[in-house]
């Protein structure tokens, strides 16, 4: 009966915890973004080292007797990591707006309209972040919690704990149960 009433009244259940709702749609701060970026960097490092290990195994399979563990100069790692990172960030931001780190921390990258960033914008932003990661820390002093990349490309990293794949985050509607209960 209550279910019928709820369906009649179009009551919606907000999946976001009450304490996090005030932050939804607001730009994330330096701690959140650093944590998300740290996860992403860890993924890239793991992917780069995996590539290196895979290459070593491949060499071993080609010449098992005279195998020598490949020695790569550091810049090779940097290049591979750069490529991986740009690719990873571009794919993530242009498709869902969030990387794995951003998903864990509940943030999403949006453009100035609040929508998903386009592929070119995602590519440019990914390259910018890979080249100049320190630009993130502008958000420490910026009044709008915006990094250098955000300022230049007019993007934002916002809190978005919802699990749906919409770029725009619909706030709790006026008739939402949780909004009523928090009044």
């Amino acid at each position, binding site marked *: 009966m209550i279910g019928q009433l709820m369906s009649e009244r179009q009551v919606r*259940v907000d999946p976001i915890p009450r304490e996090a709702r005030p932050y939804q749609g607001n*730009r994330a701060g330096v701690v*959140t973004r650093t944590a998300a970026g740290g996860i992403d960097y860890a993924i890239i490092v793991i992917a780069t080292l995996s590539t290196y290990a895979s290459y070593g195994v491949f060499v071993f399979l080609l010449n098992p007797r005279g195998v020598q563990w490949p020695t790569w100069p550091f810049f090779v790692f940097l290049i591979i990591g750069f490529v991986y990172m740009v690719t990873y960030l571009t794919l993530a931001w242009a498709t869902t707006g969030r990387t794995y780190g951003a998903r*864990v921390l509940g943030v999403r990258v949006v453009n100035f309209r609040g929508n998903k960033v386009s592929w070119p914008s995602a590519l440019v932003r990914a390259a910018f972040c890979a080249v100049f990661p320190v630009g993130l820390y502008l958000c*420490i002093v910026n009044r709008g*919690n915006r990094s250098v990349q955000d300022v230049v490309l007019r993007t934002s990293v916002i809190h978005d704990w919802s699990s749906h794949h919409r770029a725009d985050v619909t706030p709790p*509607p006026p008739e939402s149960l949780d909004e009523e209960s928090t009044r």
Partner: protein
Amino acid sequence: MNLAASTSRAIPPSSPSRHQDVAVESRDEASSSQGSGDQATGDVSSRALVSLRTPETNSTVRSLSDSLVVAGLTQAMDTTLGVVVVVSKPLIAVGQWLEPVVMPLLHAAAHPPLVPAGLSPAAMLTRLRRAGTTARNELVNGVDTEVRTRATPLAKAVLERVDTTAIVLEAVDLKAIVTAALDSIDLTDTVVSRVDLERVVTAALDAMDLTALVRDRVDLAALADEVIEDVDLPEIIRESSTGVASDVVRGARMGAIAGDDIVAKWVDRVLLRRRARRTDVPHERQEILADDQATDETVREPSAADPNDRSAHE
């Protein structure tokens, strides 16, 4: 002797002292009248009647006469008793005065010499008394049987002609009686122990359409709102659909947000900023959200319009 016994039975049980007095008198009478004859019996009866005229007896008789509304009969009985008392007192005095002389003579007359014991006046009186006792018992039994057979039809006939309900309603304080009865019994315990509550409830539920009744009389919408507000349904759904990992993620996110706030607060303090940061969504995004909101509202039921709805004001 029988009269004395019946007199003692006539004494109300609520007056033990009176009963004792009558019993003593009866014993005195019995000792004095041993073989003295009918005169002694009459003397005893008069004494017993006199002894009955106590305040308690009078009150009993008075209440009885009041209840039967036979004041004339009571007056006649009192007059008769007065005559008996007046007449019997001198006789008793004379009897007591003559007792030392008369008693031996009466004894001798009852047991004359040279007369067989079976033919003596005492034996004849004994036989007469036994015959009288038998006749009295038969009479009492006959009356009792008659009363038993005719009392019920008589009572029915009387009750048919009398509006007992009206009399009871007029004369009886039903409220006091009911209150006293309810005070003296544990009604709940009585009902629980004697009533088949399950059967009663089942019959009541079978007889009514509970669903229709609830729909008609209960504000289900308000009730649902209250229930949902009390149980925090979204939280229950969330907890039932998330696991430990989600709790960890949730804690990490909230910790990061708290870290953001702390860093922002300290930086703003160092930079001597007075206004808080504007971290809300861009203006363009607000418009998009408002458009989405309006789209959602068109899908909703028209009656669900909310005055607080932002899209409705925009």
